Structures are given as C-alpha cells and as structure tokens.
C-alpha cells in the first residue's frame, strides 16, 4: 500500500492535485504561527541580560540557519531518488529547492552578521559556523548557475544531482575542517551551541518561529515546484485540463 502511495505521489499529476488541496492549510496555519511567535518573541519575551534586546534576532536567525542545511539535505535525498529510480518529480524538486535554499542561507548569513554587530562588535568573523554557511551559500549559487547554463533540462537535472550528491558528501567534511581550523584562531565567543539553558518564555516563541518558518518555506517550495512542473510538462494533456 505504501509502495502504491509512493508511486502515485511520484507522478507530477497527482502531486499537483494533492498539493493544491493541502497548500492553503499549510500556508495560513504557518503564517499564523510565524507572525504570532514573532510578535511574541520580539515584543513580549523578557530582555536577555547578557545580550540585551539584540538577542531577539534569534527568532529570525535560527529558523533560517536551521533550514539552510535541511534544505540541502532535502535536495540530496531528491537527487539520490532521481538518479536511482528516475523519478521526474524529484528532479523538479531539486531545482525548485535550490533558489529557495540560497535565499534562506542569505537570510541566515545577513541576519547573523547584523546580530554580530551588537554582540561581537564586528559584523563578520571567520568563525566555523559562519564560514561553513558561507560555503553553503556559494554552493547553492553554483548549483543554480550550473542548472541555468544548460538548455537541455534532463541533462541539467542529472548533472545537477551528481553535483548535489558530491557536495553533500563534502558538507560534513567542510564543517569538520572549518571547525578544526577555527579552533586555532578563535577565542571563546558567544555561539548558539553552548547557549545556557534557555528560559521557556524565550524557548516557546523560538520553537514557534522555527515551525512557522518551516511551513512558509515548504509553501515556497510547493509553489516553485508547481512552476517547474508547469514549465517542464507543458506539452502534456493532463496539464491543460488542470489549468
């Protein structure tokens, strides 16, 4: 039964119909959660006494930096499915996710560097996490530029999925090596990993903003995958019925 479900879902047609039904619920609920927890976080949580009010950026920064990596993982899973089972939908998803991943990584980078000004006193530091996020951003841009340079879409899909897989293998290595490298330069600074146990009044809006942002990004992926499907399957007859 699961197999049948997956087979059905893997065809762009059923995907499109199913996703259209779910889209509205996901969009409005996640928009509500996101705005609610942002207002909660930005205006109602008490001030942090180490960082002052600038800690409120956490509600904008953490969801983005969290998603920037999980989107790459999603791309890697999609590209493995595409290369092994030749599921077309997976190929559409890869190129649908790539620009969104670049955008999310950009949000994470820019918000992080703005956050750095009041807390670290500098907007950029060659810290392990920042550097590996920057490399991730460059990789997203590379993926997009690779895909746009080929007019033959199928070829571009295959090449792209190879690059995504090789890059995915490399991401933990980059993280590890960057970690390793920065231990030499870096004195202790405030990082997110060793933050002291967080107060529930700060934690709940954080969880809410992560969930809400996640939902919004899923909506974005849905729309952009719709764009990809309509663009690539424009000759199919079912699509004309759909439109």
């Amino acid at each position: 039964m699961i197999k049948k479900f997956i087979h059905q879902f893997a065809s762009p047609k059923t995907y499109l119909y199913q996703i259209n039904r779910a889209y509205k619920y996901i969009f409005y609920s996640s928009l509500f959660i996101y705005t609610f927890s942002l207002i909660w976080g930005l205006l109602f949580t008490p001030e942090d006494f180490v960082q002052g009010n600038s800690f409120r950026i956490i509600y904008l920064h953490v969801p983005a930096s969290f998603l920037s990596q999980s989107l790459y993982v999603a791309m890697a899973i999609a590209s493995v499915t595409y290369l092994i089972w030749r599921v077309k939908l997976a190929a559409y998803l890869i190129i649908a996710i790539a620009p969104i991943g670049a955008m999310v990584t950009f949000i994470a980078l820019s918000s992080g560097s703005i956050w750095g000004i009041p807390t670290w006193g500098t907007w950029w530091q060659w810290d392990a996490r920042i550097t590996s996020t920057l490399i991730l951003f460059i990789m997203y841009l590379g993926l997009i530029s690779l895909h746009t340079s080929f007019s033959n879409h199928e070829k571009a899909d295959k090449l792209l999925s190879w690059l995504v897989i090789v890059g995915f293998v490399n991401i933990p290595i980059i993280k590890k090596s960057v970690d390793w490298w920065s231990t030499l330069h870096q004195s202790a600074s405030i990082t997110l990993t060793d933050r002291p146990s967080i107060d529930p009044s700060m934690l709940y809006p954080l969880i809410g903003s992560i969930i809400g942002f996640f939902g919004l990004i899923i909506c974005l992926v849905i729309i952009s995958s719709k764009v990809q499907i309509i663009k690539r399957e424009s000759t199919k007859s079912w699509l004309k019925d759909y439109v």
Partner: protein
Amino acid sequence: MFNLAFKSLQEAIYMSGHGIYVWSVLIIVIFCLFYAFTHYKIRLRQLKKRLDESN
C-alpha cells in the same frame, strides 16, 4: 509570560539601542519572503496564461 517587555511604542522601536539591528533583520526576512512569494506567484500566473493561450 505574556507581559509586554516595553513600556511604550517608542521604547519598543528603540530597544535600548539595539532596535535598529532587530528591525532591520525583520525587514530583510519579510522582504525576502514577500519577494519570493510574489515572484513565484507571478511566474505561475504567466505560465498558466501561456498554457491557456496555446490551447
């Protein structure tokens, strides 16, 4: 848990000096999300229109 952290709107915007950072990040995030959604929506509409015309 739901007590306002600030006494007035002025104070909320100023955030004891950190307001500019917080609000600029908020603006960036909202701008990016808004831009992405409208971009894809417009693109989708264009593609649908083109499909309609080809029919």
